[in-house]
């Protein structure tokens, strides 16, 4: 099937290529002052009502018939460039764009470049520039990528002090998070107070919620693609900030002017973050470092070396210590085979580690995942109607589920290594962007993914191949005791999975201002984060698919309506429906910490979500912002397994939660996010957020009982009730002193108030017996009330 499709594509392409005399216009678009490439700039050919956008490396290419054209180069926040060209041979044209902030007064957008992207098939995507991220007020005054995307429709999280984010009712581990093409396995610092992305070091953030192109794979909910800056190759610059919780400093500059540049940025929270709230022996802190080197050898070859290292530590009385972090190194080579054929080779090594030390039990546990990743991606700009992207990816994983060591001399704990696991994930894809007519465009692609689980040292074998036993009388699932332990040769294939993942999107542009888009996405996910909490924790462990853990498979349909209005307003409305097969679920009381046989506590189930998203946006003018609303539902179900034995009995199982659908912890019926900014003068800019979310699903007791001196609330089915609704309002004011003008040091002050009306949002409600009064009570925990903060940022 796939072979026939591929040959069909190429035959079609050959036909189109040989049509008439055509020449290629290509080049790189950069920001004038820093020579930093710009992503997503539109280059519009006015006469043909067609165009191109720059890719992740600032490159564009378009092939047109011979002729004279007027070209417009447009990018939000920058001055538009208009140029006349005469295309009689292949032309290399680089553009340098200037920031529009230096211009005074209202800027009128011509709209031509905007409507070009409207006609493209890509939907369900949100882009944020680093500049926008920095404007959004967040708790403790620190700009943050993940906190910013939470303001978009279809994106929520479990509230304050929770890691990760949920897209369209999906789990946090179903998001593919990439920093400069390298996968990040944990995106949070300090339990979600911060994300791992240093806002000073990043250039561009894209979140794909649906209609995900075939070049992405391996996760079933969304793709968060973050690119770091390359470094200023014109002049040496420094910037930084001093905040209430952390400070940061970033330096960048040329090594060889216009050819090679470096960037190094670091952040650190103060060692005694939240100290006043603790007693003296406790601390929590994080730090991270972003580095990048780039070298532009010639017009055809660019090299990039980037690195990220981050670590979190928190400790209580030295008796409880948790640390975790990501380290990654990434080498990339951009090569232009021709004006039309762009390639990028990435070689990535990443290491995610996490450790837990419990001194009172004399126990130290460390876990991690090492990943060696090779990607080769090509973008073939055939002509103004057709772009073909193809490539191969390969990732080799080494999982350490746990190394156990004694934490002190008195401890009786003996060192132990839980069995390491090995896997390889490879994929090849072909993705075609095809403008069939000026109004109709198609995106069609196919990703073929292949996953191998290699043999490991100790493999448990179970009676009847059943690692989890169901008691038909007490109706309880419990772990089976392995019948045998098998040792196989290293590198022998234990299990393998292959999936064909078709992607399809259709865009139809009715007018310059109105478009309808439709997409279908199938994706597979071979790695699973073992977590039975509402949001990920640093002690959660990633595990590969295998005999008992099947790959998750997604089918998502999305339909969108896009309308540009007057005065910079636009409306986007999308509907989505998705189903996920093989979503793992945990039996009641599943213990995941240092568990060497995870198959004994999980069952394979399914999940589904559907919803409607509405985004009303104003992107230009002094008054900017958006209103996002999402109505959605997210559920999961784990029915009992189908009986294998025939002993005259039914052998049926009840499954988890009696096999009935239940709300996932990320089911938020209503989600409203409003973000507004107002540039009052050159001196003052104001920003505000309002967030409202239906309360997170949880459980309230339907009774209580006593057992062995414990008073235990007794619960019914899973996630029947909800926490109270979550809402808050934040404001911030940015002061740019007027005396900055003409000075080398440019400073700014950001004053912010988080949760202005001091709402005590419940992060949880616990039902417990008060040990002093002996009375049962419901206790609400809230993380933040009103939090004022001040941050000082500077540029040099």
């Amino acid at each position: 099937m796939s072979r026939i499709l591929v040959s069909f594509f190429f035959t079609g392409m050959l036909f189109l290529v040989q049509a008439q005399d055509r020449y290629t216009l290509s080049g790189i678009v950069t920001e004038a002052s820093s020579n930093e490439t710009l992503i997503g700039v539109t280059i519009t050919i006015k006469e043909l009502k067609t165009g191109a956008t720059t890719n992740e490396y600032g490159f564009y290419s378009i092939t047109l018939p011979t002729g004279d054209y007027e070209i417009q180069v447009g990018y939000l926040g920058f001055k538009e460039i208009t140029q006349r060209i005469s295309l009689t041979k292949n032309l290399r044209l680089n553009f340098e764009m200037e920031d529009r902030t230096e211009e005074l007064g209202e800027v009128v957008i011509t709209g031509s470049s905007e409507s070009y992207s409207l006609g493209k098939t890509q939907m369900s995507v949100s882009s944020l520039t680093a500049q926008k991220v920095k404007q959004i007020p967040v708790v403790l005054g620190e700009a943050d990528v993940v906190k910013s995307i939470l303001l978009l429709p279809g994106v929520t999280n479990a509230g304050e002090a929770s890691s990760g984010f949920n897209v369209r009712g999906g789990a946090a581990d179903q998001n593919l998070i990439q920093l400069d093409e390298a996968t990040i396995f944990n995106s949070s610092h300090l339990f979600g107070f911060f994300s791992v992305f240093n806002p000073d070091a990043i250039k561009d953030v894209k979140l794909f919620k649906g209609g995900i192109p075939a070049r992405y794979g391996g996760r079933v909910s969304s793709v968060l693609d973050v690119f770091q800056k390359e470094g200023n190759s014109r002049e040496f610059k420094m910037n930084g900030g001093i905040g209430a919780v952390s400070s940061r400093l970033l330096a960048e500059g040329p090594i060889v002017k216009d050819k090679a540049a470096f960037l190094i940025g670091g952040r650190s929270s103060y060692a005694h973050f939240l100290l006043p709230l603790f007693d003296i022996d406790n601390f929590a802190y994080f730090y991270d470092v972003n580095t990048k080197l780039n070298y532009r050898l010639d017009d055809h070859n660019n090299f990039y070396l980037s690195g990220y290292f981050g670590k979190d530590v928190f400790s209580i009385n030295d008796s409880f210590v948790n640390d975790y972090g990501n380290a990654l190194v990434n080498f990339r080579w951009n090569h232009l085979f021709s004006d039309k054929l762009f390639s990028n080779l990435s070689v990535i090594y990443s290491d995610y580690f996490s450790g837990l030390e419990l001194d009172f039990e004399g126990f130290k546990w460390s876990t991690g995942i090492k990943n060696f990743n090779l990607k080769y991606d090509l973008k073939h700009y055939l002509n103004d109607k057709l772009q073909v992207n193809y490539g191969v990816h390969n990732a080799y994983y080494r999982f350490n589920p746990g190394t156990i060591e004694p934490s002190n001399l008195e401890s009786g704990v003996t060192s132990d290594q839980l069995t390491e696991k090995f896997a390889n994930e490879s994929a090849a894809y072909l993705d075609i962007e095809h403008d069939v007519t000026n109004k109709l465009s198609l995106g069609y692609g196919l990703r073929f993914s292949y996953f191998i689980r290699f043999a490991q040292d100790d493999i448990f074998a179970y009676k009847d191949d059943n690692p989890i036993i169901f008691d038909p009388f007490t109706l309880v699932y419990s772990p089976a005791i392995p019948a045998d332990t098998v040792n196989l040769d290293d590198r022998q294939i234990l299990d393998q999975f292959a999936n064909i993942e078709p992607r399809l999107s259709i865009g139809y542009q009715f007018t310059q201002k109105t478009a309808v888009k439709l997409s279908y996405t199938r994706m597979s996910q071979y790695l699973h984060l073992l977590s039975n909490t509402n949001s990920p924790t640093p002690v959660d462990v990633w595990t590969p698919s295998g005999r008992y853990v099947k790959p998750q498979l997604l089918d998502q349909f999305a339909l969108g309506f896009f309308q540009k209005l007057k005065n910079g307003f636009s409306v986007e409305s999308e509907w989505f429906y998705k189903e996920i097969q093989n979503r793992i679920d945990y039996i009641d009381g599943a213990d995941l910490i240092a568990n060497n046989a995870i198959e004994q506590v999980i069952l394979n189930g399914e999940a589904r979500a559907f919803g409607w998203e509405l985004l009303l946006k104003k992107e230009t003018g002094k008054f900017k912002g958006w209103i996002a609303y999402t109505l959605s539902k997210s559920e999961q179900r784990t029915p009992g397994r189908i009986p294998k034995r025939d002993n005259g009995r039914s052998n049926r199982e009840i499954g988890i939660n009696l096999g009935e659908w239940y709300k996932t912890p990320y089911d938020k019926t209503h989600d409203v996010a409003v973000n507004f900014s107002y540039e009052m003068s050159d001196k003052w800019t104001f920003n505000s957020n309002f967030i409202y979310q239906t309360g997170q699903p949880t459980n309230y007791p339907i009774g209580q009982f006593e057992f062995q001196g414990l008073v235990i609330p007794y619960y019914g089915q899973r996630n029947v009730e909800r926490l109270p609704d979550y809402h808050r309002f934040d404001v911030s004011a940015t002061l740019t002193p007027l005396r900055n003008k003409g000075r080398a040091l440019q400073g700014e002050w950001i004053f912010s108030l988080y949760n202005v009306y001091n709402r005590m949002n419940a992060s949880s409600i616990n039902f417990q017996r008060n040990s002093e009064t002996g009375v049962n009570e419901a206790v609400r925990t809230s993380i933040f009330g009103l939090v004022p903060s001040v941050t000082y940022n500077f540029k040099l």
Partner: protein
Amino acid sequence: MMMKSSVGIISFFLFLTACQEVIEVEVQEEEPRLIVDAVIEVDTSVRSFEAVVKVSLTSSFFGTIPATELSQIILYNGGAVVFLLENPVGSGVYKAILGPDYFTSGGEIVLIIDYLDKNYYATAEYGPAVPIDTIFQRVNNSEENLKSEIVVKYTDDADVVNNYLFDFGDGDYIATDDEFYQGEETQISYLLEREYEAGDELEVRVLGASKPHYDYMKLLLEQSGDDLSFFDTPISTARGNIFDITDLDNIDVFDNVYLPGNFPLGFFAVSQVYKSKITLK
């Protein structure tokens, strides 16, 4: 393995950063359900002891739990049937005097309860424990506050898989298994957070638990504790090992899959127990 205590500590962490408040919550209720607290503590150092089972009924979370009365409750070890009698009458506490041999002679112990028009059944395996080697109190006198720790040292039995429940009274337990210290001398420490006076006695008991009993206790500890959002798992009914056999005729009905609502709460277990006392300073 050692989940409970780590949860406790992380809760402690968040507790300090967060704001907690008692609030009014409206809760749903269901028909009262039978609760059976049947952990038989086997003291192998004496010739006979009381086997005690407590029965009561569930109530609304904010109500009180009433005792109840059974029609009959028996134990069976494959040899002898023993009837437990309510003492004092009306307390819901059923007792029988038995020797350790009744439970340690090997094989499953069966519990059968008749209550109203229902019959309930459970089996248990003997959970072995080990004696406490030493127990002492460690007082950390830091500037800010006084912290008192109870350290319990014990030597794991190398020949069997052990699951331990250390009971410090007041519903404070530490659950730990020997997966990572098989046969080793080891220790646990318990942070004494309750108020006490010097000279008070604290009894520490170590109960041996079968794997199902251990898992059940861990689930209850998780559900009764005040752990916060970090480790909040989707909680639902903690089902024990006692089940309804009233309708199981083995002709048409072989299991309870089609009657998932008919179950009592609680657990039947047989645990070896060792006790140790410490005078607090």
